[in-house]
């Protein structure tokens, strides 16, 4: 029987959504698995998060200390290495924290590591079989690893259904004393908030969002004209911001804005999970892409295989005529 340990990320004591998704993921590994939540932090925030988790997990390990007040992966990894048993199947989130923590943790625990897991087929003996995506979601792959001596996996936030109301009646076990030496060569200083831009894309009901398919900076104008005709606002994917063609505040995605429009026009956007992760509230998604196999067509409501540089001006013309 697998012994699964799920790391619960939280903000000021409020668990992130992935906490409830682990439960579904763990059941897919082994429906009879013993699943333990691990919460780290300091003071009231730690107690609040650990307390909340007792409704969902039979056992909740809390590890507290001043050094753990901010989730510095370099510090948390040390504590986990001291606390996790040798055969632990560790689950973390595939987000900016998990990417910081998990690869090194797997090396220190000497267990195999699989990141960004989007589905789990199950455990056959000690062989764990999971699904992950490659090439920006254009293909999926089945991946196996021998978890006899444990494993480290990170799951994609949002890929598993969250567990509904919990009644696990679990207990909090304080393992702060076992965390060991928590000095690290990386010291957290501060968090700088993202700048607020001129346009607030989160307020618009309709977004004309451009991706790398826009090809050149001059072409942004084409999108602006379409947006104007539709009474919409222009947003974009990350490469457009990296190239400084639009300001950061127009970027949709996990490292940009979270938007909840009624209609989302994805123009030359492939549909990476980091981009789609910023689109909430189930808008009507229209995707225009010249590649009929672009992953965005799997999640869009309406798909059109066209060159956006030709399609957008024609659509703008027709909309203006209305």
């Amino acid at each position, binding site marked *: 029987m697998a012994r699964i340990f799920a790391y619960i990320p939280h903000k000021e004591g409020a668990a992130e959504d992935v906490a409830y998704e682990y439960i579904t993921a763990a059941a897919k590994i082994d429906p009879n698995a013993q699943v333990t939540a691990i919460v780290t932090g300091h003071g009231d925030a730690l107690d609040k998060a650990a307390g909340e988790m007792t409704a969902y997990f039979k056992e909740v390990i809390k590890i507290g200390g001043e050094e753990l007040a901010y989730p510095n992966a370099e510090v948390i990894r040390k504590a986990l290495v001291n606390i996790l048993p040798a055969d632990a199947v560790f689950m973390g989130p595939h987000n*900016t924290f998990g990417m910081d923590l998990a690869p090194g943790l797997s090396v220190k625990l000497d267990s195999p590591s699989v990141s960004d897991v989007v589905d789990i087929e199950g455990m056959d003996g000690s062989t764990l079989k999971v699904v992950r995506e490659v090439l920006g979601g254009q293909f999926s792959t*089945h991946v196996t690893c021998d978890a006899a001596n444990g494993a480290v996996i990170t799951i994609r936030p949002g890929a598993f259904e969250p567990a509904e109301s919990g009644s696990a009646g679990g207990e909090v076990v304080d393992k702060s004393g076992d965390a060991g030496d928590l000095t690290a060569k990386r010291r957290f200083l501060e968090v700088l908030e993202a700048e607020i831009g001129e346009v607030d894309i989160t307020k618009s009901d309709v977004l004309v969002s451009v991706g790398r398919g826009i090809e050149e900076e001059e072409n942004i104008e084409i999108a602006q004209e379409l947006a104007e005709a539709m009474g919409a606002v222009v947003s974009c994917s990350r490469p457009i911001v990296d190239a400084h063609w639009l300001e950061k505040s127009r970027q949709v995605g996990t490292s940009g804005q979270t938007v909840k429009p009624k209609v989302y026009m994805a123009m030359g956007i492939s549909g990476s999970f980091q981009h789609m992760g910023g689109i909430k509230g189930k808008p009507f998604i229209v995707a225009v892409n010249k590649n009929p196999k672009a992953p965005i067509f799997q999640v869009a409501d309406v798909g059109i295989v066209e060159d956006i540089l030709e399609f957008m001006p024609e659509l703008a013309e027709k*909309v203006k005529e209305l």
Partner: protein
Amino acid sequence: MEILVCVKRVPDTAENEFELNSEGNDLDRDDLVYSVNEWDNYAVEEAIQIVDKVGGNVTVVTVGDDESEEVLRREMAMGANNGVLLSDDAFEGSDCRSIAAILKAEVESGAYDLIMTGAQADDGAAEVGGMLAAMLDMPYASLVNEIEIRDGGKIKAGREIEGGNQEMNEIELPCVLSIQTGINEPRYVGIRGIRKVAKVEIPTKSASDLGIEENSVGEKGSKVKRLDYFVPDLGEGAEMLEGSTDEIIEKLIEKLKSKGGLG
């Protein structure tokens, strides 16, 4: 400052329409267009900018086959001083851990103050950098979008976290950083630049050169096995609008009207 940047040759997602091979266990890799992993260009640019400021050398390294030499040359045309190709039949079928183990051997054969990787590559693993750091017992920071070299063997590094916020850290050297796109604007490399480095000698190191046990990496040494490739079936997918462009636009406008997409 001696900086090592790990770079990977990857199939270019913008230039290829990917197909599976007949066995369904890999891409059809004949005739694919390859390039340097997007994230790695940012890492090399950052390394060059640091060396321009504080002095030192930038070395680029890749684990690959003979054809991977071209990505090393491209990064040398950008301004990296040296290139090293790590290549051996025994490296084929490596998982992230094996790739990191091979890179570790190269790091230990030099005296590097700073090691950089891209935040992620074509497999979307985002693992090699963090594994390498742990193997070397060096501090690590992922998704770095700002680096400031400080006195006393330390750096200040910004990490990009959710929502585009930035987490600032102070890190002791030597360390490993994975670099996020947008940290800089990678310089353009023209044909002339490539020509200049066309004849530069690039050393190739094998498993035995690196002191790596053949069975410890590659297909034999990797605990994570990739079984196949497949196209995910995520239910219905989009309703594809077809016909002439005029017909498509007509249908689209009807739909947009009913969904509140036209003001």
